[in-house]
């Protein structure tokens, strides 16, 4: 059991990196990676939301959708549940944990229905993960996202001072960087 969870942890965070090999959550990856500290904040918010969302989606799938035999409605149910969950988390943090809200609050609305969140909920179902395995998978995926966005932000900070051809300024050079990072992450595939 522990070994299985460890394998999921490594494979979801490094080998099948959510951004660099599955292209989920690309928008915040490219958008909020200008500075390392904002990237880390975004990463923390993503870890928080994806872990929570995979737990809630797992429970709902097992005890509501499967019980009633309406698993084909999973896409609709998951997206509404996730959207409502993030709104609720935002309100809860604002009221009861203002310091955490200060740190994560800005990023929460941005990931309300980020494709990575829905993607993980659906992957957990597709791979027939149980609730605990699903949570571990969600957490590991989000850690993978955080690792890659922080690395990208670090590179972009350095790149500010480089001379870049005019038409490659902005997104193109960031995408080239992401492509090189993806090649580097291909190296992890020998890990398992």
């Amino acid at each position, binding site marked *: 059991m522990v070994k299985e969870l460890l394998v999921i942890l490594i494979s979801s965070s490094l080998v099948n990196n959510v951004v660099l090999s599955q292209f989920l959550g690309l928008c915040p990856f490219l958008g909020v990676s200008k500075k390392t500290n904002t990237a880390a904040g975004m990463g923390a918010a993503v870890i928080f939301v994806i872990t929570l969302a995979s737990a809630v989606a797992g429970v709902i799938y097992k005890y509501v959708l499967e019980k009633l035999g309406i698993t084909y409605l999973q896409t609709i149910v998951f997206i509404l549940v996730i959207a409502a969950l993030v709104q609720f988390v935002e309100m809860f943090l604002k009221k009861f944990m203002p310091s955490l809200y200060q740190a994560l609050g800005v990023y929460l609305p941005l990931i309300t229905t980020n494709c990575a969140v829905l993607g993980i909920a659906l992957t957990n179902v597709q791979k027939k993960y149980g609730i605990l395995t699903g949570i571990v998978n969600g957490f590991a995926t989000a850690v993978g996202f955080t690792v890659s966005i922080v690395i990208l932000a670090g590179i972009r900070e350095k790149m500010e001072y480089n001379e870049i051809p005019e*038409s490659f300024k902005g997104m193109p050079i960031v995408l080239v960087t992401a*492509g090189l990072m993806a090649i580097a992450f291909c190296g992890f595939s020998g890990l398992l």
Partner: protein
Amino acid sequence: MSKNGKEGSYGGSSMERLYNGLVKENPTFVLMLGMCPTLAVTTSAMNGLGMGLTTMVVLALSNMIISLLRGIIPDKVRIPAFIVVIASFVTMVELLLEGFLPALYDALGLYIPLIVVNCIILGRAEAYASKNPVIPSLFDGIGMGLGFSFALTCIGAVRELIGAGEIFGLHIMPDSYVPCAIFIMAPGAFFVLAALTAIQNKIRINGEKKGRDMSKIQSGCNEDCMNCGEKGCSHRFYGASGSPEKESGNGRRGKNAQAVNADGKGRE
């Protein structure tokens, strides 16, 4: 280009809508919308075409229904309502594909349900279908969908040609050509998109030098797959300055946009 910004003033003619989606506001080549599926499924021209057509069906049908419901859906809950409509069609299309085109279903996999969060669809619902009559909305959906299919097929063909020496499975390159397999793997997607955005930048810079309006180019979203439309979050990351905190507020739409904006500024 002269008509941009005013959805209401668009001509309602069906041909004009198709042209708009295919050329003038091509979702991938001009607006840069829906990048996640664009990168993920364009490993071959066939997959790109399949994804494009699937998206087109969902887009046309959801545009039609949302246009029919435009007088009924209250403004405050319109985004959740749109999402439910879109998700219903995605589920239908997913089941149909599973039943009738299992090969395509397996190739696209997770990215079929993820059509729900493709910003092209919500963007068109928000920017066009919720304000215009049924027939133009339907054709707007078909036009945008065709534009998306065209773009995905092109990108898929380029990747397949470089990565495997084939297009649509037909061997094209001479035998002496050694395929560069990285182009059909994940990194290749980033490189192709980088080249594409570089070309867009070049065209925009040249156009601006000649004094043409190039504001449409790359005016899609780059931050949040969901809260974006055609105008909602344009130029946030292509503008000169601004911190993510400030910028993050612009993506939010609806009544609470102001509140979020104020929050974001207050926290800096």
